[in-house]
């Protein structure tokens, strides 16, 4: 296992970096590169902590920067990243077009474009870009990007050696890239129906970065599937209490329901309902899929799930989105 900076240190330093850049931004002394860095770091923290407020702030800052520096390709690249993180994929692709016209470095724009194409299910186009990136320079980022694409397509045989190779090419001590890689690997095995393998990778990711809420949430899901329901419930209670992402409350409600703890399940369900409603009204594209998942299961409103799953399919026509719609339709009572 590659040793990386302890999660406590890395997270304290990440928060400190963000605060320092915010201070500079507020005083009007931030360079273009630092603006982009601030947006990237906020998205990173949002992803790790599952903190929606950070995604929103990253988008607001990227939009502000664009108003101040609309002739800079970097402004559009930042905006594309922020919009992509909230599933505004069409807008992100058009931002990338402008960024490239304004002369942003090709490799940076192509990496972002590949991520967006992958997210919307245009896998073949994403694959071309990912392979080009590896041919251009087979570093950690490019190889891990190709691994993640194969993982997303469920191509475990292709993805596994690339995940291994990514480790070999890693040059640094930040835990964030490796924790994300391990999470993606776990997610691939989870979707492939291997909860044991999935749990091991989620566990590796969470141990590397204990603040990584998504990794711990999925670890809890895998633990519950493998029979450790008490452990899973304990994890999810904490996550649901700390995060402003309703996914953990939704997962917790589902497991408690299955275990016959209806009273507590209802409390977490109510909390998830309220939060999903808020988020879907503010960012429909970003939360349609998770909300549809919730309403078709613990949320017990499959009709609403179908509406949201259809919206999600419009945003990204992926196998997962199609499967979600099918599940939502199947959950509806027969007419």
């Amino acid at each position, binding site marked *: 296992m*590659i040793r990386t900076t302890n999660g406590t240190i890395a997270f304290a330093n990440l928060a400190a970096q963000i605060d320092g850049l915010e201070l500079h931004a507020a005083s009007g002394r931030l360079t273009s590169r630092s603006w982009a860095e601030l947006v990237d770091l906020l998205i990173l923290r949002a992803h790790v902590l599952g903190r929606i407020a950070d995604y929103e702030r990253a988008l607001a800052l990227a939009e502000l920067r664009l108003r101040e520096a609309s002739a800079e390709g970097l402004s559009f690249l930042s905006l594309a990243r922020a919009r992509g993180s909230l599933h505004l994929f069409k807008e992100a692709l058009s931002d990338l077009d402008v960024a490239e016209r304004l002369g942003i470095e090709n490799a940076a724009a192509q990496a972002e474009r590949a991520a967006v194409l992958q997210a919307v299910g245009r896998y073949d186009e994403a694959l071309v870009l990912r392979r080009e990136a590896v041919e251009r320079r087979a570093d950690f980022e490019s190889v891990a990007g190709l691994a993640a694409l194969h993982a997303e397509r469920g191509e475990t045989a292709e993805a596994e050696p690339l995940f291994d190779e990514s480790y070999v090419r890693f040059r640094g001590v930040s835990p964030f890239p490796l924790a994300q890689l391990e999470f993606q690997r776990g997610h691939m095995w989870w979707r492939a129906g291997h909860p044991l393998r999935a749990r091991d990778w989620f566990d590796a990711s969470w141990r590397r970065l204990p603040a990584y809420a998504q990794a711990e949430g999925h670890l809890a899901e895998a633990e519950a599937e493998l029979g450790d329901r008490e452990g899973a419930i304990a994890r999810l209670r904490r996550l649901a209490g700390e995060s402003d992402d309703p996914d953990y409350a939704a997962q917790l409600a589902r497991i408690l329901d299955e275990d016959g703890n209806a009273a507590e399940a209802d409390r977490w369900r109510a909390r998830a309902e309220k939060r999903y409603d808020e988020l879907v009204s503010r960012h429909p594209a970003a939360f349609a899929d998770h909300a549809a998942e919730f309403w078709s299961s613990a949320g017990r409103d499959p009709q609403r799930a179908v509406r949201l799953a259809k919206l999600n399919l419009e945003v990204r026509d992926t196998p997962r989105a199609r499967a979600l719609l099918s599940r939502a339709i199947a959950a509806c009572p027969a007419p």
Partner: protein
Amino acid sequence: MSDHGAGPRSIANPEIDITDVFAFPSPERPGHLVLVMNTYPFKEIEATRLFFSDALDYRIRVHPVRVASTGPSAAFAVGEEERAFSFIFEVPQKSGDSLLQSGTCHGPAGKISVRVGDEAGARSGGLHVFAGCRLDPFFVDQQFSGGIRLNRRIPEVTSVNSLEGQNILSIVVEVEHSTLFGAHAGPLVAVIAETATNGSFRARLDRLGRPEIKNFIMMDKASDAVNRDLDVRDLYSEEDGFKLRPDYLGAYRARLNGSMAFYDGLDGKTDWPLDAKGTHPLTELLLADFLVVDMSKPFNEDGYLEIERAILRGEPHRTCGGRWVNHDIVDSLLTILINNGNGPRISDGVDGTAVPASRKFPYLSRPTPMPPKLAPLVGIPT
């Protein structure tokens, strides 16, 4: 912060990023060598919230060195012996409302524990070490230095220290010179700082000797006759600065020759004529990329590059060389590169920080105190 973000890897991993190295005879205690390594740039936050990585080996390496030749082919000969000061840090532990970090310096005479942020540092067996957050002592107007490369001319001076108030993480070592290589060793030592992984897989991640070699000189691709689309700095930082591999030497030479010729031409005259092969007179000396300190000479604030320039002229050097914390290396380096001292001093108009370093251990000034509460940007939800 002369070497901040010196390559894609350091930009992506700021904790590995060495920003500056200083080496000088102690102004307090003659016969003692002071070594300073700064990392983790651009931190305008409270000192108590910054920590060294527990996954890094922060090390300062010292070799004996002598002048091998003088004149146009001036060169140093680096001795094989090495004395290294290697710092490993622990995961911070909770203490009341704060987190406290400790570390260990593994030096030639054994181990010494240090508490991060302890002003007094730690002493043992003639060694005095400090680790903690300090005010970044580097000063530069980045509009000026960046403007040269961007606009290919000497810009107007705006005299703004772009780095004012930033904090960095510092390691300071003060060691009796005679204990390094013996009382009869020569007076010259060569110094490099590195960050490397400290797990089972060992890799050098960043390395620094002289300031601004990578950013002022190697970053600029435009004048490179060989590689105009390659950032060579990550490759360069991976190298052992005392023994560059032959594999990429051609690429480094081409970058230095082209970039330094560009600087030389900025005032419309040539002060550094290239040889028949297009080699700049400073290239080979600067590729020996370590600070050279003469411990037989007293502390001198302005010794930076004096030894190198003297041996290039075939003259004895007069100062201790090395690099003192408050020395204005931006002005010095730009003046050397642009006119070799045959013209006015080239200045970015910034001659120091608001709080210069003191002549007392740990030399670097205390960090910027708790910054003011963040003023929210108008219209931005916090």
